[in-house]
């Protein structure tokens, strides 16, 4: 294992530990979305996925 991979692993671990409390707080305080709210998120994400597939076909 190269030293760069060891540093990457340590940095990722540190970010996970630092972000974990913030993530827990966000889950507690985030409002609940309705099914219509979630559709407003899922549809653009599907469009993005199709767009990325299109880019892959261009390479």
């Amino acid at each position, binding site marked *: 294992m190269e030293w760069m991979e060891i540093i990457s692993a340590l940095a*990722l671990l540190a970010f996970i530990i630092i*972000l974990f409390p913030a993530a827990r707080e966000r*889950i507690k305080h985030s409002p609940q*979305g309705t099914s219509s*709210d979630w559709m*407003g*998120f899922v549809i*653009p994400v599907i469009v993005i996925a199709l*767009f990325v597939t299109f880019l*892959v076909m261009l390479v």
Partner: protein
Amino acid sequence: MNQNYSTVAQRSTSAIATNKVLRNTYLLLSMTLLFSGFTAALSMFMNTPPMTYLISVIGGMVIAMFVLPRFANSPAGIGIVFLITGMLGFGLGPVLSMYASLPNGGNIITLSLGGTGVIFMGLSAYALTTKKDFSFLGGFLMVGFLLVLLAALANIFLQIPAMSLMISAVVIMIMSGFILHDTSRIIHGGETNYVLATIGLYMTIFNIFISLLQILGIMSNDD
């Protein structure tokens, strides 16, 4: 009657403040993106070693998480945003040099850059025109991001190319969600500091660009 006038006046003041935050955010974002492009070109010209990327990303993230919030309400905050984005751009230099050396490298870089621009502008336009409140995504996106970091950590040891591809695809989806969430927060007055708003949106653009580079790089090698 007076109360009605007061409510209308409060609403219009709030709308003006929101527009100001939005305008300042996009102005600072465009300037930082140009600055990043300049530092990335400088780094490519200097032929910096691959470890530059790692050092720049870790340094940039540490400054963004621990230093920027202390100065976000002062003029120094703008300088720190340029420092972070300049560092991240400088770190991109060796990555771009590596992709540029591939047979189809120029095409991969151009498509990633254009693709990132289309995704960001498309999602921003969607959030701005629909004016939907995406604050409900906050917890979901944070958990998703933590899971992606865990998967990336695992893949450092596992070294599975398909997993790397999957992680990049999921990062694009999560960052797309963050663009909707952050833009909606500005529109609805949840984010009133354009310095913090800029760095949030910059990080999403940076992550989408890196992930697209990785996906297109891996897929072009499969031919």
